[in-house]
């Protein structure tokens, strides 16, 4: 077990359903003891990846290792050390939430009633209600309580906070921080950027079943530009010529532009000379990275499409 520097290692994973290619060579690692964010738009293959990691689906190609084992062949043994929260929780209609939590916990290991109660309190869940009567958020809480009440080495969370209110999201953040402090590993699939930025050490972004970006949050931020909005008494014309300034526009008397990280000192010195009356600088966000990435991809795709159409017309 000492060799497991990586809780999850995936290389070149492929999976097709008929002629739909869900994964086309995905790479992903979850370093042990860390939280890894897993971002991608709907239908990009996040859930398929997690279901392969659980041994529910069999990959067509590539390599996947979970806690040092094969997720398909060693599923039963590995699941003793894995807790899973599906994105869309299905429960037994005629059982109560409390019964479902006990069943899920005991399927992987012994039940710790004290931990269960602690999590029930934290997520304010009534365990005596029949699952049929739970809202989506409450069903999600059942799966979360069951996962967090265990001492699984690896948590696979597929959009775990969908349907939760902001207070419960805070409870979730707190819980994941505890899990991390205990040296356990988490794969957190999500499209809530703030949540991933707050919790994740590293992030992998996928699109159409392929990894398009991966790295620590700090590394990813370095590739982004700071967004600056200023009101400049000295006018903005002088900025256009400065190295590292991009997307310069003038809107309602405000000057807006983006700056590469390495050019920030020089640009700010220039801004200071232009007598700023107000200045707002926003650090790059994961969301921006995400949108930029997909925006560019989208533009490329559209471009290719219009080229194709033009070609067809000729």
């Amino acid at each position, binding site marked *: 077990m000492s060799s497991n520097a990586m809780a999850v290692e995936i290389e070149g994973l492929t999976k097709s359903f008929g002629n739909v290619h869900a994964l086309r060579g995905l790479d992903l690692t979850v370093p042990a003891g860390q939280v890894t964010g897993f971002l991608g738009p709907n239908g990009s293959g996040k859930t398929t990846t997690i*279901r392969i990691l*659980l*041994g*529910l*689906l*069999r990959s067509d190609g590539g390599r996947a290792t979970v806690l040092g084992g094969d997720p398909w062949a060693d*599923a*039963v*043994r590995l*699941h*003793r050390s*894995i807790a*899973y929260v*599906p994105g*869309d*929780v*299905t*429960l*037994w*209609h*005629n*059982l*109560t939430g*409390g*019964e*479902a*939590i*006990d*069943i*899920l916990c*005991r*399927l*992987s*290991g012994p039940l710790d*009633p004290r931990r269960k109660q602690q999590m029930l309190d934290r997520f304010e869940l009534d*365990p*005596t*209600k*029949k699952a*049929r*009567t739970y809202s989506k958020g409450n069903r999600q809480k059942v799966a979360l309580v069951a996962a967090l009440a265990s001492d699984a080495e690896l948590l696979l969370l597929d959009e775990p906070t969908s349907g939760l209110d902001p207070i419960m999201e805070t409870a979730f953040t707190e819980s994941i921080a505890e899990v991390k402090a205990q040296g356990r590993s988490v794969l957190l699939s999500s499209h809530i950027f703030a949540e991933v930025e707050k919790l994740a050490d590293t992030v992998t972004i996928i699109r159409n079943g392929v990894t398009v970006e991966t790295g620590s949050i700090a590394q990813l931020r370095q590739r982004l530009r700071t967004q600056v909005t200023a009101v400049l008494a000295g006018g903005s014309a002088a900025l256009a010529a400065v190295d590292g300034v991009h997307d310069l526009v003038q809107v309602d008397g405000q000057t807006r532009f983006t700056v590469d990280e390495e050019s920030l000192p020089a640009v700010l010195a220039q801004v200071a000379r232009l007598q700023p009356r107000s200045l707002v600088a926003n650090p790059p966000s994961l969301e921006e990275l995400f949108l930029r990435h997909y925006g560019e991809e989208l533009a490329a795709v559209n471009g290719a499409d219009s080229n194709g159409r033009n070609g067809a017309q000729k």
Partner: protein
Amino acid sequence: MTTVAPRTRAAALALPTRGRPADTLAGLGAMVRFVVRRNRVRLAVWLVVLVGLFAYVGAYYKSLFTTQQALDDFAKVSDTPGIRALTGLAAAPNTLGGAVWTKVWMTCALALAFGVVFLVTRNGRADEEVGRTELLRSRELGLHAYPAASWLVCAVLSVLVGALIAVVSAASGLDPYGTGITGSLIVGASVTGVGLVGLGVGAVAGQVASTSRGANALGSAVLGVLYVMRMVGDLGDGRLTWASPVGWGQEMQPWGADRWWPFGLLVVLTVVLLALATVLEAHRDHGAGLMPQRPGPAGAPVRYATPLGLGLRLQRGPVVGWSVTVVLCGLLFGSVVHAMDNLLNDAGTPLPAILRGRGIDALMAVLAGMIALIVAVYAVQSATTLRADEASGLVETQLAGALSRWRWALQRLLIPAVGGAVLLAAGGALLGASYGATVHDGSWTGRMAVASLVYWPAVMVLVGVAVALFGWLPRVAIALTWGLLAALWFVMLIGDALHLPRWVLDVLPFSATPYMPLDPMRWTPVVVMTAVAALLVWVGVDRFARRDVVPG
């Protein structure tokens, strides 16, 4: 607003919660089109299969019985306890129409009634359960519009099936010369009538139960009870036949008494049941049944963490329901055997003592087969929950724990396997004990327990088929399993009319089983079927363990 008098305003405020909502049928037309569009294949299949079945048997018998002598002979061989019990005997068994009636009327009428129950649930409780109705109701749609549309479509289906059967019957010349087409009209109307009662039963079941499974189970159970009531009535003095709407359909007696008025009874009962369903729907909340939700335990016992323990808990309702059914049927069947025997004697049938003994044995063998059929439905239903749990996503939740697919599947299959054996033995024993008590012969208990238990391999072959389909064709497994069971049932009932080779009929699980106590025990078919069942289960589970988990 300021001009509104306080009292009027109070009344206006009270109205929405107290009064009846306006326009409860708004959107009916759109919903009728929706129901037809969504069920067009199902509706067409029911119509074609039922009418086709009647037309086929009609044409076949027309070519088979060319003389009155042939019909008279056929009527004589038809008058057995088994046929009286299973399908009922026509009022005029020695007419061409009567012969066809004996063969297919019960199948057509009951199949239509069951089909309508399933259709009503599919467009009623099932949609409400998963939230589709909620989406529809958020639009400009009256409270009763969707159910009314589904009822209307099912009623039209029943009428069409009956009308086409009447047309087919008249066209194939089933009416004796000189009687016009009265018998044909009556036979069509009687099928329609029983179908309509199925509609009423399904509508009420959909209001009482809060799940689609519950609604289908309740509706089927009611139809099953009505069938058994008429069966007991037909074997005995006929009083219970008149207590059952299925019996009313029989008692319309096409080509016999040619009665119209029981059709009136059937229609009135349907209207009453639909009215009851409407009232129930108007007085309950969307998504609720009659039974309110109560808080349950906050924790689960350790046994729920095993597939067997959890499966037993989840199938508690069906297991209890089927057990009660089997126990009641065993007792009921056993209690009428003696009366049937007396009836044969009263009729002055000149049977020597030894032959009469054979008559009882034959009747008991039929009844043991009936118990086995009920147990088969229980076992297959339990086996199809493997796929049902996979389709709903429940199996993923369990397999994400430290649980192998083999262990999950095999433990779950203990429920149909062990449960089936227990129910067979218990049903047979009660049948024997109940008859034995009337003739003061305790040895019947053990004999019938064995006669019924010997069907276990046949039941397990059906379970094996369900498991193999679950493994290899998960998406269509449930539909195919029930389709095959229905086909088996059809072939057993009318197999000889289908020109199927003898060996095909003999190889069917139920026909291959020794027909005890009439026939002696034979081990070969029992051992072979057990092996086939084990192989099918292995093939199915092995495939499941190697394939992707496929949600529905």
